[in-house]
């Protein structure tokens, strides 16, 4: 049973996460500790893993090309933030009998539920009309929808409008990590299920898939809605970790960043999306470590070149290795060669 295995792996990962969380305070975990900067990086890796794997479901496995993922992240972030700002405190006090940690966790879980639901509805509204389009038209329409979502949010005064929105900080490293793992496990299981085969068949050849009886539109919309829901979850976590929301966080460049993650890693590979999320989060930090360079009068920092370097990586990846670092291979595929030859493997590999 494949899904049982992946859930077990997920539980082990959550256990490791718990240990890491214990190491967060400087005194914890045999006194080694992880400082604030490192834990912040780990959090952003986890949020980006959610974004990258969910977009990978749409772009990598279903073969659609959405470049408006940040829009759904914004929907989830703002919807849940509105909920916690208006109702969070009240729910927390009414649950105070359960202890502070449990009460705030329940508020966060409710917020995640709301964020995912609202983002899924937004995904449905955007997906039904636009998934009739193909390739580059779909790309432009999703980009347009993401921008419309951003402008609409910018004009809602109840969520701060242009001045930004203060959000209570319910999310912490542990919850964000747990949801990153849940996202990876759920999307992995979707891809390995019958529905996942249908999605991959749409990616490989839409007309042939339709001829084989796959309800192309339904599967495309479903994958788009699931992807949007997880983008919403990442938005909820981002909002409640960052404690501040501004529509500037969800501009074109954010959507492009997510695209860069899955393209570098390899579209159609779970491992690739995770790897891409790690690279895109860490690269700016690595650049920051490089010394400043002086040319003539001006000095410049490599960190200022962050987006230039991303763009170059994107173009060079396309020219030299269009399938990305991993293509469609997974991390587990590297261990396949060590399996015994007489052991039968699945027929549909």
């Amino acid at each position, binding site marked *: 049973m494949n899904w049982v295995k992946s859930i077990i792996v997920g539980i082990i990962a959550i256990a490791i996460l718990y240990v890491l969380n214990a190491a967060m305070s400087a005194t914890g975990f045999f006194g080694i500790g992880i400082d604030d900067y490192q834990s912040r990086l780990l959090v952003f890796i986890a949020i980006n893993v959610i974004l990258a794997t969910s977009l990978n479901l749409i772009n990598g496995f279903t073969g659609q*090309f959405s*470049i408006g993922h940040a829009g759904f992240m914004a929907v989830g972030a703002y919807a849940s933030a509105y909920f916690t700002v208006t109702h969070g405190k009240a729910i927390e006090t009414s649950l105070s009998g359960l202890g502070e940690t449990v009460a705030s966790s329940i508020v966060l879980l409710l917020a995640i539920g709301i964020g995912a639901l609202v983002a899924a509805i937004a995904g449905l509204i955007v997906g039904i*009309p*636009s998934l*009739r*389009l193909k*390739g*580059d*038209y779909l*790309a*432009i*329409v999703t*980009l*347009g*929808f993401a*921008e*419309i979502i951003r*402008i*609409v949010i*910018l*004009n809602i005064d109840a969520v701060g409008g242009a001045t930004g929105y203060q959000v209570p900080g319910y999310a912490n490293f542990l919850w964000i990590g747990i949801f990153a793992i849940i996202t990876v496990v759920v999307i992995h299981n979707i891809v390995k299920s019958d529905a996942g085969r249908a999605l991959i068949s749409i990616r490989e050849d839409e*007309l042939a898939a339709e001829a084989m009886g796959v309800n192309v539109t339904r599967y495309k919309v479903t994958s788009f809605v699931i992807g949007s829901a997880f983008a919403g979850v990442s938005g909820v976590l981002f909002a409640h970790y960052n404690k501040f929301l501004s529509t500037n966080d969800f501009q*074109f*460049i954010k959507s*492009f960043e997510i*695209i860069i993650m899955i*393209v570098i890693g390899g579209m159609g590979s779970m491992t690739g999306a995770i790897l891409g999320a790690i690279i895109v989060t860490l690269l700016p930090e690595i650049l920051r470590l490089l010394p400043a360079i002086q040319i003539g009068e001006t000095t*410049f920092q490599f960190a*200022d*070149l962050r*987006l*230039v370097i*991303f*763009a*170059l990586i*994107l*173009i060079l990846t*396309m*020219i030299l290795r*269009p399938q990305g670092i991993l293509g469609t291979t997974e991390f587990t595929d590297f261990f396949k060669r060590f399996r015994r030859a007489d052991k039968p493997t699945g027929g549909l590999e």
Partner: protein
Amino acid sequence: MDTFVQQLINGLTIGSIYALIALGYTMVYGILRLINFAHGDIYMVGAYAGLFLATSLGFAANPSAFGFVVTLVGSMAIAAAMGMAIERFAYRPVRKFSKMTTLITAIGMSLLIEYLFVFFFEGKPRSFPQLLPNDNITLFGNATISTSQILIFVVSMVLMVILQYIIYKTKIGKAMRAVSFNLNSAKLMGINTDFVIAFTFALGSALAAAGGVLTAQYNPKIDPLMGIITGLKAFVAAVLGGIGNIPGAVLGGLLIGAAETMVVGYGSYIGIPSTYRDAVAFAILILVLLLRPAGLLGSNVQEKV
């Protein structure tokens, strides 16, 4: 009535700029089936090239028609060279790969140009010098038209006529039409398709750069990210008119420009605040793609198995 005429003039001014940029999108799409995401940034490069030429050649200090023409033509030439370079080094190597690969390359190219400019020229807006004396001419009532608006109409009209001449009356134009009809057949007929594609990029980029310099005369604030939204709107204009269709791109540009200013001017009466200005084009795009995907002047293409 006065305000309506005023809004219409302003709308058609912006619309002419969109039309100039949309022509580049539509020509490249017609030939390569590629949305050249970097095209909006070429428009920005054109404006910066104009700024550079105007200040370094001293036209900024004493405005003259000669200075304006030199700046315009010079920045068009710079942008054309840049368009050809982008095609040669980024798009040509990936042309044989899937459509998604070329699209991602185009997105990468767009980001590269934007953030190189942010890096070298800083993100904050710069002011563009007036190259021609600017006056307001009162038409009737309170509606006015400025010389820079007249300039935009006249120059874009002239450039569109020149483009029409190149495409329908010259040998290279015939080759362009052949390549857009069928690239492989054109190659078999002895057409140097690589050259034709490079020429198309040069032509489109020159028009976008002209748009950049003209916009800078009308609204003298230029910044490295000015091409993103304008480029996307121009793309919407190309789709609205029917992508691959040259008169369609012009029609689409004018319609988008007019629609946008009308929303700014009258949207508040029907509950649309003027801050939705940038959303108008995208709403139009979505409606067009759903109701008439081929665009106003385009023809439907049946997908073959």
